[in-house]
């Protein structure tokens, strides 16, 4: 399908119909990961390391196995194959299956508190708990390191003796540095030397958790012939199938994964934790095994995203033209390599049209739980430093913060430091919309301040499959391989309805299991509405072609003489014959006599994802005596390409902004002196609550991505990027103090106000 140039022709795309999954969710009928039970299901639980770093000397499960009701105990040494190091590109972050296997179940060493050591299946939860207490694990406790800079220092405790860093010279001794990356354009140092004004700052962020409401949950059942059923909440049923196959060395065809309804993922459900354990336990016990993490386990043992430290330098001419910029950043990977340091560097300056720029970063392991993707992985971290520095630069130049960004904005033809030349993008339009929004010029009261910050995310395409079937009565079924975490069932149904020319209500979408639909990459990177949407549109177009053929057969004219208009076959012109339009339902009713059922499945590798840009304006009021920050007003402007279902798009933007505000103000991983997480619950890991926030106003700018039939750009990642610096810049405006370290919690703000240094 060609790009729809005239959006006014659209009848379904761009409207706000009721979501297809709404009733199930509000009535509690929706089946989430923990909601399925099978006859004879056992309860599986994980024994986890109490130590931040230790060698496993021995594991003796004999007493646990002797306890009545205990059906299986699995350990890495006893039940999991040792697999070789194999890197694979997957979703938003590269994965190494050996590391993933060792994270699922520790082998030889535990690398963080909460690292899985053994798993138990028993007839009841209480028996499983008792069994875990009976497993004797002998540890040789080792020195640990939590902080990223301490992990890079000489003499730091080493996590992996065999770690060979990539992208840099071999250090000649064991190291915790897994990788160095660098992206360059022009000569950044020379550019900085040309500047009239240079700002430089060191910025720090902490690890933050995705904070999905639904903990990880799975039920697995393995038959003696190897056929395996898995029902789990994740961002990719095909991801689970692939990873379980790799970790347990099973045939992929023996594994069928049914996607549960998902209670939030945000990138954190792009990995397996429990699934291989449940499969291994079920295989051993001969019964289905269900495992559900506690919130405490979710915090301690599933991925947060990285914290990091960075130095940012930006230089500009007096007129605001940036002459050079650098960022040097080190990110926590957790216990195994794989922080989002590359995207952090690639996104750092992507909002700007710069001639001289360098972004360098290190991926560093330490004794923390292995990080997982979190919305726009890496980008919010580097953006906090860069957009704080941009604010400092605007102040130093005496320029309006938005004007400085307009002056340097990336546009069509801009070459980004990470390589590509941008095609049509909407950053200038976003900045214009922000500047002309009444929020930017609204008056402020005492102790109040306003900040602005921007953000960039690539958005991605990739493997997607979708099928469209015409039912006997002319209604339509759509199946896609993408778990619905942001409204994709609604948007697939809408795009299919648009192509077919039928009402949205006549199209019912589902998410298929791994045996029902072709391979589809996981939901992440803001790819689904673009890539799976493209597959759905193509499948619907094939159905339209077939419908035209069937009408032609009934009319006994050539298929080329049939057009498709508003859900009906019509003769293409006067010469085609004087037939009355034939509705889709009429063609469907005769399908048996014209060649059989009508339907189409399309599997593609979607190319041409359109980059997304956003600008957020934030007003705060700071209690100067207690450091309490109140978000007074918040406006998030974003180029979304084309909003298929604007309410979902606004919801994505609001949700991203809120997660970013939490990251800015109060969320953090706290460790005690033994390297154990000290705040593994929602009481002391403080995500924003509803009463903390004003209505987040989402402003949709639509600069279409012409490589998608309806102009779609991804929208889910961009909105979490600007809030960190937008809030920091607002606090600077309200207090006069620049906060360099997240979270900007009340004690830190009070200390900064008192010392004049943040």
């Amino acid at each position: 399908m060609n790009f729809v140039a005239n959006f006014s022709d659209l009848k379904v795309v761009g409207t706000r119909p009721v979501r297809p999954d709404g009733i199930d969710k509000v009535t509690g009928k929706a089946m989430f990961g923990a909601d399925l039970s099978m006859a004879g299901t056992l309860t599986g639980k994980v024994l986890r390391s109490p130590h931040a770093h230790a060698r496993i000397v021995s594991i003796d499960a004999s007493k646990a196995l002797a306890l009545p009701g205990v059906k299986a105990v699995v350990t890495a040494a006893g039940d999991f194959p040792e697999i070789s190091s194999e890197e694979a590109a997957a979703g938003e972050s590269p994965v190494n299956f050996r590391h993933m296997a060792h994270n699922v179940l520790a082998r030889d060493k535990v690398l963080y508190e909460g690292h899985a050591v053994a798993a138990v299946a028993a007839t009841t939860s209480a028996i499983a708990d008792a069994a875990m207490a009976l497993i004797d694990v002998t540890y040789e406790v080792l020195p640990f390191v939590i902080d990223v800079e301490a992990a890079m220092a000489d003499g730091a405790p080493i996590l992996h003796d065999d770690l060979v860093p990539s992208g840099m010279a071999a250090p000649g001794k064991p190291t915790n540095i897994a990788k160095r990356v660098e992206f360059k354009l022009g000569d950044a140092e020379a550019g900085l030397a040309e500047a009239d004004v240079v700002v430089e700052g060191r910025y720090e962020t902490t690890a933050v958790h995705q904070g999905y409401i639904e903990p990880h949950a799975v039920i697995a059942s393995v038959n003696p012939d190897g056929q395996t059923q898995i029902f789990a909440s994740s961002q990719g049923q095909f991801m689970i199938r692939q990873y379980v196959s790799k970790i347990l060395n099973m045939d992929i065809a023996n594994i069928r994964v049914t996607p549960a309804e998902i209670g939030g993922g945000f990138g954190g459900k792009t990995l397996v934790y429990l699934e291989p354990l449940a499969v291994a336990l079920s295989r051993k016990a001969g019964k289905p095994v269900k495992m559900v993490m506690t919130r405490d386990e979710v915090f301690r043992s599933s991925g947060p995203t990285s914290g990091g430290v960075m130095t940012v330098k930006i230089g500009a001419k007096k007129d605001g033209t940036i002459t050079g910029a650098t960022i040097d950043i080190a990110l926590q990977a957790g216990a195994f390599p794989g922080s989002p340091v590359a995207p952090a560097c690639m996104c750092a300056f992507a909002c700007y049209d710069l001639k001289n720029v360098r972004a360098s970063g290190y991926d560093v392991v330490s004794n923390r739980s292995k990080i997982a993707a979190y919305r726009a992985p890496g980008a919010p971290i580097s953006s906090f430093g860069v957009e704080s520095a941009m604010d400092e630069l605007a102040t130093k130049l005496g320029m309006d913060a938005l004007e400085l960004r307009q002056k340097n904005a990336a546009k069509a033809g801009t070459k980004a430091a990470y390589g590509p030349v941008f095609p049509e993008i909407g950053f200038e339009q976003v900045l214009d919309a922000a500047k002309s929004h009444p929020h930017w010029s609204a008056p402020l009261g005492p102790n109040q301040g306003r900040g602005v910050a921007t953000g960039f995310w690539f958005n991605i395409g990739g493997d997607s499959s979708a099928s469209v079937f015409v039912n006997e009565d002319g209604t339509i079924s759509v199946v896609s391989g993408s778990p619905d975490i942001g409204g994709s069932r609604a948007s697939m149904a809408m795009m299919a309805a648009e192509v077919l020319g039928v009402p949205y209500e006549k199209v019912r979408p589902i998410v298929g299991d791994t045996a029902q639909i072709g391979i589809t990459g996981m939901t992440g990177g803001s790819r689904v509405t673009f890539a799976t949407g493209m597959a759905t549109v193509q499948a619907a177009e094939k159905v339209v072609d077939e419908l035209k053929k069937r009408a032609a057969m009934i009319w006994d004219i050539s298929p080329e003489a049939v057009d498709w208009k508003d859900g009906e076959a019509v003769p293409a012109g006067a010469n085609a014959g004087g037939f009355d339009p034939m509705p889709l339902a009429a063609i469907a009713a005769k399908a048996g006599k014209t060649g059989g059922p009508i339907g189409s499945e399309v599997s593609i590798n979607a190319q041409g994802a359109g980059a997304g840009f956003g600008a957020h304006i934030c007003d705060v009021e700071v209690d100067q005596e207690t450091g309490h920050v109140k978000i007074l007003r918040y406006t998030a402007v974003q180029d979304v390409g084309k909003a298929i279902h604007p309410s979902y798009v606004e919801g994505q933007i609001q949700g991203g902004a809120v997660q970013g505000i939490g990251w800015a103000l109060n969320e953090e991983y706290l460790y005690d002196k033994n390297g154990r997480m000290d705040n593994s619950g929602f009481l002391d890991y403080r995500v924003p609550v509803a009463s903390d926030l004003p209505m987040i106003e989402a402003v949709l700018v639509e600069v279409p991505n012409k490589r998608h039939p309806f102009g779609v750009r991804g929208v889910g990642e961009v909105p979490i990027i600007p809030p960190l610096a937008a809030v920091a810049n607002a606090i600077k405006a309200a207090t006069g103090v620049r906060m360099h370290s997240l979270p900007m919690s009340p004690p830190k703000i009070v200390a900064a106000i008192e010392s004049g240094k943040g």
Partner: protein
Amino acid sequence: MPRLSYAAPASVPDAVKLLAGAQGLAKVMSGGTDLLVQLRSGRAKPELIVDTKKIPGMMGIRETADGWVIGAATPSAELSEHAGFSAAYPGVVEGTNLIGSTQVQGRASLAGNLCNASPAADSVPAMIAAGAVAVVVGPTGQRSVPVAQIVTAPGRTSLAKGEFIFEFHFPKVSGKQADAYLRFIPRTEMDIAVVGCGVNLTLDAAGVITAASVVLGAVAPTQVAVDATSIVGSKLDDAALAALDTAARAACNPINDKRGTIEFRTKVAGVLARRAAKIAYDRAGAR
């Protein structure tokens, strides 16, 4: 496997008998909003839970000639919806209104909040500032104990085995007297006080403070009284407020933990004491 028994006796003697006769750990439950969380997390492993809500008198609010009598297990939501008590003790109600969430307040009680013995308990500073008295029942009969003497350390109370709180007595509020409670949390709800401060002031007709009670929470192992003599005799002018700030900071003996640093808690204690005192002063003046 460990066993857990539950009993809901209908009288004080039956409850006392159960508690006093228990072999292992026995816990009194009113709303259960702390106890059930402790059970689930494994922090508390009682063998017996005695639910006191079926005992006549444990739930309810009544006004007497001497003041107010509050059943120990009365849900805090009932306190905040009680017009008479809310008017008499707005500060106490401000405290109970901050316990947990709206849903939690449907169960959470004054006795539970007190006997959980957290230094951060939101209802306790204003109760102490009000001079509330707990009526304690147990194997040796009944005794009256000032609320200030119930909590002895984090997680510990002065109640003996078999004892529990039956009701609270709040003195009659007369003349220009009023209270207020403020707490500091990083968010706006669903949190635990980093600092809490209850203030109860009495003024004369000219607006001069004749009696003052200022109590801090979350800045020491138990709630602590601030020496408020410096504001007695004042009209809470800037000098008096500054003296109160200093006195509040001097009363602090906090720890560094995940919820706040020593420096931060100490500073904010002074800030909240000033702010709560102003609210109480304005309320008292308006009476």
